[in-house]
């Protein structure tokens, strides 16, 4: 059963897409989207409950007593920091600004949202794969998943720069082989034997 059609389809077509999709979460735009999403929400939440301004005042108080005649800002707070904290804080602020600008210029938000949607679609396909592979002839279901879910989703993401490979992530063969063995061990005995020759039936 080393070259069953289902096995070949999983190895050649289905698994490389599914495993590449798992690596989407490691892309810079995906990670920054998560970081910016959390920080923006946290800052907004703090501001809403009135914690942001006291926090800046507190930050200023580390260096010296706050000047209550002016409202606290990041710039004034940086000026009042202890000397040893000024450069690290400036580096963090500049890095934050550079990342924000790069993220916006490179359409990071759009790419991350598309990538997130794609990973969801392919995650759902992974769940449907179990049902498909449990059938005696999984080929119609596998073809359906490839044609209606996997390829259209990946194509859209490639065209929008949200899928950085063409079309599979590099060095994915070992991972594919491992996953294939797991799936075959679980389901292969359920598959009906097929003619090894690749021929048109009628």
């Amino acid at each position, binding site marked *: 059963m080393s070259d069953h*059609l289902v096995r070949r*389809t999983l190895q*050649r*077509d289905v698994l490389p897409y599914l495993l590449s999709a798992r690596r989407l979460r490691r892309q810079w735009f995906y990670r920054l989207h998560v970081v910016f999403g959390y920080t923006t929400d946290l800052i907004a939440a703090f501001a809403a409950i009135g914690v942001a301004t006291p926090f800046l005042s507190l930050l200023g108080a580390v260096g010296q007593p706050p000047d209550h005649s002016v409202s606290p800002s990041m710039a004034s707070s940086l000026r009042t920091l202890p000397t040893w904290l000024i450069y690290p804080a400036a580096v963090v602020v500049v890095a934050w600004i550079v990342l924000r600008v790069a993220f916006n210029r490179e359409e990071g938000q759009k790419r991350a949202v598309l990538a997130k949607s794609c990973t969801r679609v392919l995650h759902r396909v992974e769940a449907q794969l179990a049902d498909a592979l449990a059938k005696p002839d999984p*080929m119609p279901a596998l*073809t359906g998943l*490839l*044609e209606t879910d996997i*390829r259209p989703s990946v*194509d859209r993401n*490639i*065209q929008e720069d949200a899928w950085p490979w*063409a*079309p*599979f992530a590099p060095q994915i063969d070992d991972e594919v082989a491992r996953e294939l063995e797991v799936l075959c061990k679980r389901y292969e005995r359920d598959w009906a034997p*097929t003619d090894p*020759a*690749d*021929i*048109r*039936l*009628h």
Partner: protein
Amino acid sequence: MNRPELVARFDLSPTGEIQAIVRPKHRHYRLLLSVRGTSDDTYAVTYQLHESYRDPVRESVDRTNDFQLAFTSYGDFVVQAKVRSKSGTVTLARSLSAALTDGHEGSMSGPLKAAFEEFARS
């Protein structure tokens, strides 16, 4: 901009013999489908073969051989190719016999011509 072209060839052995699987009803010729003239940003071609194959939709991601696909057929049918690139998807469709004629660039003779005639009749 050139439009990509779907072509096919009979698969020949190193000694020039036509490769085929012989079954009681038909001779299933081994064919090589490919798409010439794809743009540099093409990353895959998905071929739609006759519905009677057990896996009628097949994909090639190897641009070094013009996204070649090896398969067998005993006779003619219309094959479809979706050329997938960063700039979009182009769908091509043509009969295998027309693709074979272009693939061999009109230079079929002897056994190759006989095989083609038998193939085109089926």
